[in-house]
């Protein structure tokens, strides 16, 4: 058998450099990069040897190209296997794939990031970029909601980011000792320094949460073409060939996962699309 022809369905082995447990369910792993250029919003297909492959957004800092960072939430066999990886072990990588968050379009404008649960992970590269090039943007606010205090990701970075951008955090349900806000992430909107005329919003989280957040933003007066969301669907090939990730005419792996809200608002309003 010959060595594999370079093929988009063939993963390259990548060594795990570090591992950090974020929450009960989530782990952040850093993989040795191989020079792949990637942009915030994109994802890799991560292959756990013999178990399977899943799409995971890149959650690292674009300013550190030596490593590919992913925050994995354990929801099934493959993600569980990825969460159990230790430094020095190997994983398969295919990618990067997909569309990107509109950082260029956001230049010179107010930026509002609305993240729910593990949805903060795909937005983390955006926050890194915004902090690094802070003067290029007007007012920047991150609204972050999670289920409970124990489910908050990147807690130390949230504090650090707070020095450069406004960070408002809330949980759906409090726990003893929690002195932060309680309530849905949409309730933080009135406190965001954000002008809906000219501002740009990026929303990421469970589909229900994004739908409600878009409704709140619409109520605030933000045009749908000024909001972006990140969609998720079942993916096998990640290159628009296997047919699984279709959202109407769009392949979420190619035209997404980042979509401008006006392109997919119709799909959010139809059941089982």
């Amino acid at each position, binding site marked *: 058998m010959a060595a*594999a022809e370079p*093929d988009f369905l063939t993963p390259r082995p990548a060594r795990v450099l570090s591992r950090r447990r974020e929450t009960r369910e989530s782990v952040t792993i850093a993989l040795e990069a191989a020079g792949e250029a990637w942009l915030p919003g994109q994802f890799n297909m991560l292959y756990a040897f013999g178990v399977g*492959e899943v799409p995971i957004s890149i959650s690292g800092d674009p300013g550190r190209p030596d490593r590919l960072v992913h925050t994995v939430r354990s929801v099934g066999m493959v993600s569980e296997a990825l969460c159990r990886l230790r430094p020095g072990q190997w994983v398969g990588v295919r990618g990067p794939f997909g569309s990107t968050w509109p950082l260029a379009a956001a230049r010179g404008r107010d930026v509002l990031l609305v993240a729910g649960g593990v949805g903060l992970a795909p937005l983390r590269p955006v926050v890194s970029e915004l902090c690094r090039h802070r003067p290029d943007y007007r007012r920047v606010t991150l609204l972050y909601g999670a289920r409970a205090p124990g489910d908050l990701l990147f807690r130390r970075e949230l504090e650090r980011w707070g020095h450069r951008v406004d960070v408002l955090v809330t949980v759906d349900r409090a726990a003893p000792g929690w002195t932060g806000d309680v309530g849905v992430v949409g309730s933080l909107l009135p406190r965001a320094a954000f002008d809906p005329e000219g501002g740009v919003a990026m929303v990421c989280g469970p589909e229900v949460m994004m739908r409600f957040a878009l409704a709140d933003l619409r109520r605030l007066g933000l045009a749908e073409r000024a909001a972006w969301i990140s969609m998720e669907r079942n993916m096998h090939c990640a*290159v628009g060939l296997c047919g699984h990730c*279709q959202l*109407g005419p769009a392949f979420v792996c190619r035209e997404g996962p980042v979509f401008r809200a006006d392109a997919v608002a119709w799909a959010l309003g139809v059941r*089982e699309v």
Partner: protein
Amino acid sequence: MRTLPAARLGDLVAALRRRGWRVIGPVLREGAVTYGEVESAADLPRGWTDRQDAGTYRLERDPRDLFFGFTLGAQSWKPFLFPPRLRLWSAERDEGGSFEVRGEREEAPMQAFLGVRPCDLAAIAVQDRVFLRGDHTDPDYRRRRERAFLVAVTCGQAAATCFCTSMGHGPRARSGFDLALTELRDDAGHRFLVEAGTERGAELLAELPTRPARPGDRQGAERLAAATAGQITRRMPAGIAGVLRDSYAHPRWDEVAVRCLACTNCTLVCPTCFCMAVEDTTDLTGAAHRDRRWDSCFTAGHSYIHGGSVHASTASRYRQWLTHKLSTWVDQFGTSGCTGCGRCIAWCPAAIDITEEAAAIAASPGGTRC
């Protein structure tokens, strides 16, 4: 154009085989016409025709005694260019825990497809647009496609399930083939009108015992194609792509869901359906494998994510299939995904008719669901 005596059809098979092509053509198996290896003209289902309708397929003796007197069987040419199961690669771990992926690169077979109906020829062109896109070409499809020799055949009869004419095709292929045959049987004898569509087609044609086509041959072919077109009764409503774009809430989806078994037959027999599942497995030696196999949007697993299926109901799955085939396919690839072969109508156990469903939706576009 040339004419080949019907009795010498075997020479075409022999010439192809001499040049190294494995000839795949219509053969009789288990009460139906299917595609298998053809070693001589005797393997073809001469003297048989088919009677098809919604949920119905029967073979019958044909008094015309033609080689291609049937219309088409359950199978299309899809499995020969896009195999139902394909091993993509295998990998083994080394002592360091890393692994090396090894591709399974068998030589793609040289296959000559003998008797490609124009609807199936169009379907191959539709799949070319799917698999041979600029940015991500499927390497296996490309190899098989390059090593495929296409011999089209004009339809001398239409089945009740055919509707190619309303999909922009017709009983006679105009392009996309290496050779095209039209079987004629009249006072001038039993013969094939043969046209070459490519250089390699012309080279092969030169080896066959043909004579130049006469005006009677050409006219006979035109008349035959027109007569076959005249037999077609079903049609796809015009503008269906636009209608379906706005019909996600149409009540017809719930109505067809009562009948649809989600059995996936339609996606299996369809010559253009391309959904594939990627499966990762291990064997007892500890080696890992990645395979690709046909999948269907009618399964619950197709849209599985986060503990549930996005397309939980049969209604939503039928809607996905029909809307993709006739509407969003156009947005994705520039043509309709349907070529009017009618297989999905014949092979649906619930006798659901794609043209009837499309017409029902087109008759009351939009539709609201309470």
